């Protein structure tokens, strides 16, 4: 599995998900990101061949706008809970779409997505493939870290 393959999978998954269910055009990749203060980050683990971790960060304003598109509502009327719920599902779908592209012949299982807070330990340091886009409402970064067979397995996610 090459870096090019994974990057293409990330790009394709993001475009596919945002176009189908959020009615947003495939966003352009951006290389330099100005750190946003108010962001939401979600994390989930996958149990496939190989297993891995997925993370998605986006500006809160982008999360609210994207949630509004998904629910067919005005952004002003989106509640915090609705924004969080949609963001979790967005991450779930992008991760699933990435893995379906990478692991097309294997079965994978996704753990439940969760919002990362300061209290939750950061995922083990390691190389992850990152891909950042401008959604039109703020930047969104997706990252995937796949285990290689020479590395020790991470702990199974209990769900």
């Amino acid at each position: 599995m090459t870096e090019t393959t994974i990057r293409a999978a990330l790009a394709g998954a993001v475009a596919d998900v945002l176009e189908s269910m959020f009615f947003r055009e495939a966003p352009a990749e951006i290389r330099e990101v100005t750190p946003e203060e108010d962001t939401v980050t979600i994390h989930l683990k996958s149990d496939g061949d190989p297993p891995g971790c997925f993370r998605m960060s986006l500006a809160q304003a982008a999360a609210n706008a994207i949630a509004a598109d998904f629910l067919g509502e005005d952004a002003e009327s989106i509640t915090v809970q609705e924004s969080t719920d949609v963001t979790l599902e967005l991450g779930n779908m992008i991760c699933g779409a990435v893995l379906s592209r990478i692991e097309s012949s294997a079965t994978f299982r996704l753990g439940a997505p969760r919002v990362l807070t300061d209290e939750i330990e950061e995922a083990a340091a390691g190389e992850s493939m990152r891909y950042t886009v401008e959604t039109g409402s703020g930047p969104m970064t997706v990252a995937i870290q796949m285990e290689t067979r020479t590395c020790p397995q991470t702990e199974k996610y209990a769900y």
Partner: protein
Amino acid sequence: MEQIIVGMADCKVGHVAGQVLATYALGSCIGLSVYDPKAAVGGLLHYMLPDSGIDPERSRQNLYMFADTGIPKLLEQVCGQGASRRRLVAHAAGGASIMDPQAIFDIGKRNYLALRKILWKAGILLAGEAVGGGSSRTVRLEIGSGRLWLQEGGKQKELVASFPQKGEIRWPTGS
């Protein structure tokens, strides 16, 4: 048969049986047809760009130029003539890449996504569509029957056969 031409950045509504709303040269533009078969009221919008935010002054002069101002206005107008939003049957045509074959600006696709977003928010799913590609299209909507024709690449086809006319009873097959 009264033919009513819908120009670029234009919209017409019909409520008289026999009227035919027609729009031509749908390239990157989108032609949105909506029809209420019970009220026998329909409308056809031909818009050019997705978002009025890029030129608010222009949208004030002609709100049919943009998806986000034109589509709500179309729905308001057909409902004003007695259509019910819940009963509307919607079709879209256009969104092609004619002047932009490598889709660098991708206006056609952006127009199409804007359409889907606005219809989703308005609570309407598309019943059919003929979008993308590189051909120009023509759409005709007949009021009364609800018949819808699409012309593309020199060929015409009927997208929607007629709905039952007011007062007409259609027996289920086999009865």
